[in-house]
């Protein structure tokens, strides 16, 4: 009963908040008539609410990838049509829009979600409808659904290598850690695994602290005070593992710099930090702080240059409200995802999710990151390279370290 009420309420909210999902409400009859010779891909990325600035651009990347594939002749004789939506950064709404897309719009695959909480809400929907969701973010792992393609890395091939680097003599020989995250599943699970990992390294529990803040929290004064106090306590070099998301990231970094802490004193490893989070900040005082992703804009190679050029051109053409000169990992992952789907559909000779899924094994694609990313028949994970980035003066990230090749993704964590 209450679930129904909430859903109706959300429906009204979404309708009022953005006209973007109006096309979905069009009678299914008209839509299917238009669909002859085209295959639809659905995007579940918010263009309003807290995630708008980050997720919004992924709609355009999916469109750009589809355009590329269409220009090369489409897939199985059909051209791709990208259907976008606006779940308004409202986690349960992702599930509802996803269900609508699978059942009514009849999309061949879904591409979407940024936060893990939105993925978790879509998960039952794609499992019930036996659909496919391509998820472009690095995440907490411990999930292995046959209906989700994990395009980005689980912690074992993203966070742990970065933490290892910080603990190594090449890094800063970090001995203590301050974990600060938004209060939801991704930060809590990442931190749980990190703690398990440190225990196996023989690090004592007194060497870390863990704090969580609500979504879109911005008053970090007291927490930065706590970090300063912890940094000055004995026991060795402190590192902040930052898993806050959205607008909390720039607000935290600003307070951190204002209280006079530089990356030489206490480096911050921002796990969800991308170039877009540094917009509007004076990065002069933030130089040296870190992030880790499977792609950084400074990645070397021809594939990256081409991707950046195409994105700049696409933004110019479509008047997308995003910077043409900034590319972030989830953009590249979405781009990879659309291409991987197209390759699998071509290989399977079908758009049916079960057929496409069977074709995943052995796929490989030249990712703009410069790595040849691949999938195995074992699971729906994609093996990606690892980059550690370091904030520079011009609101971007330099590549501080990158992995030799693409580590094999491990879905289930052995560290709790």
């Amino acid at each position, binding site marked *: 009963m209450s679930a129904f009420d909430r859903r109706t309420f959300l429906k009204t909210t979404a309708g*009022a*908040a*953005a006209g973007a999902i109006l096309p979905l409400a069009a009678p299914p009859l008209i839509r299917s008539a238009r669909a002859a010779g085209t295959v639809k891909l659905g995007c579940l990325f918010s*263009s*309003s*609410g*807290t995630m*708008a*600035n980050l997720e*919004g651009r992924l709609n355009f990347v999916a469109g750009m990838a589809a355009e590329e594939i269409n220009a090369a002749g489409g897939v199985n004789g059909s051209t791709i049509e990208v259907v976008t939506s606006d779940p308004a950064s409202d986690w349960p709404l992702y599930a509802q829009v996803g269900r609508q897309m699978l059942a009514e719009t009849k999309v061949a695959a879904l591409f979407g979600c940024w936060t893990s909480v939105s993925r978790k809400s879509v998960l039952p929907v794609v499992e019930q409808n036996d659909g496919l969701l391509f998820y472009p973010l690095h995440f907490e792992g411990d999930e292995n659904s046959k209906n989700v393609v994990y395009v980005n890395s689980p912690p074992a091939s993203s966070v742990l290598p970065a933490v290892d680097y910080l603990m190594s*003599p*090449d*890094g*800063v*020989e970090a001995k203590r850690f301050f974990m600060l995250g938004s*209060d939801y599943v991704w930060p809590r699970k990442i931190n749980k695994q990190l703690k398990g990992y440190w225990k196996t390294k023989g690090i004592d529990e007194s060497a870390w602290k863990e*704090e*969580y*803040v*609500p979504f*879109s*929290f*911005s*008053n970090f*004064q*007291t*927490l930065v*005070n*706590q970090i*300063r*106090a912890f940094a*000055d*306590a*004995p026991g060795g070099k402190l590192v902040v593992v930052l898993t806050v998301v959205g*607008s909390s990231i*720039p*607000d935290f970094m*600003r*307070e951190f*710099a*204002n*209280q*006079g802490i530089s*990356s*030489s004193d206490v*480096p911050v490893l921002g796990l969800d930090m991308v170039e*877009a989070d540094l*917009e*509007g900040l*004076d990065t002069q*005082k933030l*130089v*040296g702080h870190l992030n880790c992703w499977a792609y950084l804009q400074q990645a070397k190679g021809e594939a990256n240059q081409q991707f950046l050029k195409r994105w700049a051109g696409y933004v110019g053409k479509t008047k997308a*409200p*995003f*910077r043409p000169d900034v590319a972030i990992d989830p953009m590249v992952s979405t781009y990879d995802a659309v291409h991987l789907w197209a390759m699998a559909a071509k290989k399977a000779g079908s758009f049916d999710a079960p057929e496409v899924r069977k074709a995943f094994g052995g796929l490989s694609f030249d990712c703009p990151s410069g790595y040849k990313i691949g999938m195995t028949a074992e699971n729906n994970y994609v093996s990606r390279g690892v980059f550690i980035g*370091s904030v520079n*003066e011009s609101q971007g990230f*330099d590549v*501080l370290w990158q992995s030799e090749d693409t580590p094999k993704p491990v879905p289930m964590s052995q560290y709790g």
Partner: protein
Amino acid sequence: MRWRGVLAGLIAVVAACSPAAALDRASVAARACGGASGMTDAANAMVASLPDASVEDARWVATFSNAAIERTLRCGAGAPTIAAPEGARDAASLRPGAPADGSPPLLSLKNRPLFETVRAAATLLAGPTAAERAGALTALERRAGSLPPELFERAAEAETDPALKERVLGVGQAALLNSPDMAKRLAAIQRIAATPDRRALTQIAALKGDPAYGEDPAFRAAVDAAVGSIERWLAVSNALNVFYNGLSFASILFMASAGLAIIFGLMGVINLAQGEFIMIGAYVAYAVQEAMRAAAPGLLDWYLIAAIPVVFLVTAGVGIAVEATIVRRLYTRPLMTLLATWAVSLLIVNLVRVAIGTQNLQFVTPSYISGGRLVTGDFIVTWNRLFAIVFAAVTLALTWFVLKKTPLGLNIRAVTQNRAMAGCVGIATRRVDMMAFGFGSGLAGLAGLALCPIYSVNPQMGSNFIVDSFMVVVLGGVGTLAGTVIAALGVGQINVLIEPLYGAVAAKVIVLLMIIAFLQWRPEGLYAVKGRRK
């Protein structure tokens, strides 16, 4: 900018002197181009050479390490070079005319502090101005232990500025904490305890494990006295920290809710678009900044001040427009104003989103709102928060003045207390409503202005404030400025006290529960205006 001038000076000096042989510059430069471990070697070699280095060598070390930090160093196929606007120079000889190719080496996390220390140490020895040397000394204070003690002795000898000389000697003393000479150790302890922060406490408390602590009673007494004094000061600085954090949070709460207190108090209108007025204020401040960038770039740093009247007038205008077109027609239906103002807020958010975009706006951060100052112990006053506190205090004073000392304020108070009677004595209540709504919106706009050095400015920022500001207004008692101030101070202070104990999530919940409990006891809030409503 500052550095460029210094560099130019250094070039002139270095070009005039003959290169000394003590430091193998070419080898250091080459090593700095040999990856992360090479850079570490280079930094260590430079530190080791500094105590005996000639002045020219020290200057070269300052120039070279600065080039590495500022990323003007170029490592290519040939010898390393330093890029400059007037043309590349050879990194070892600093002679111009070198081919500028290659890329800047990236300082790793470990090497950055090393190079910063090297740069500061070299500048302390050979910096051309006393201000430069003082700045370098400040940078070295926290890292004094990692440098050879002779370096400070030499710097003090060469120092011409007496005040700075004293400081250099002091920092040098602090670096001798583990010296074999007991007198020097005791001096070091005293010296360190003079800056009573947590780092000093850690440093001195570690001495309790030192063998001398058990053997030498003088040493033991010095350590105990130092620890005691630092702990006392730390308690003071902690209290100051909590007070300052609470005050700063309270100023934000007050700014966000002052306008609402007037609107809600006067008309009973639950204005859900209040947060969006805050957002509009911040966007107008941005527009003023951009206008000044185009029209008067020299005064750009003062855009926050220049924006105050513009922000107030524009948001007040938007508020009046909303009142005249929507709110006015719904006075008899309060629940519908709630829905209507919510619709207005959605409309404004999406208009801004479509017209300007969802990204965070890029604000110039002039020096008066960036960084902070260490006052005592670990107590830092951050300028952007202080700006918000002062801004809130001034706003409070002006609002109080308008409400108590002007005809408009008199009318507003009259209408708030008894609308029907105010109408009877000839006050145009509808006009007062409009003016009050405009005034309240303008205050919200000013809140946006005060917040833009603290928070990120984007179309969604308003929604973060709406719940908090209603909380403060209802707690304070509807329609009283004093109540709003006290409530903001209370909520801010309590939040800051609870946060370190139970975490930020629990702090929000506990504060909310406390307010609910309080309102059970006093439903009208802290201060109630008598006869406000029937």
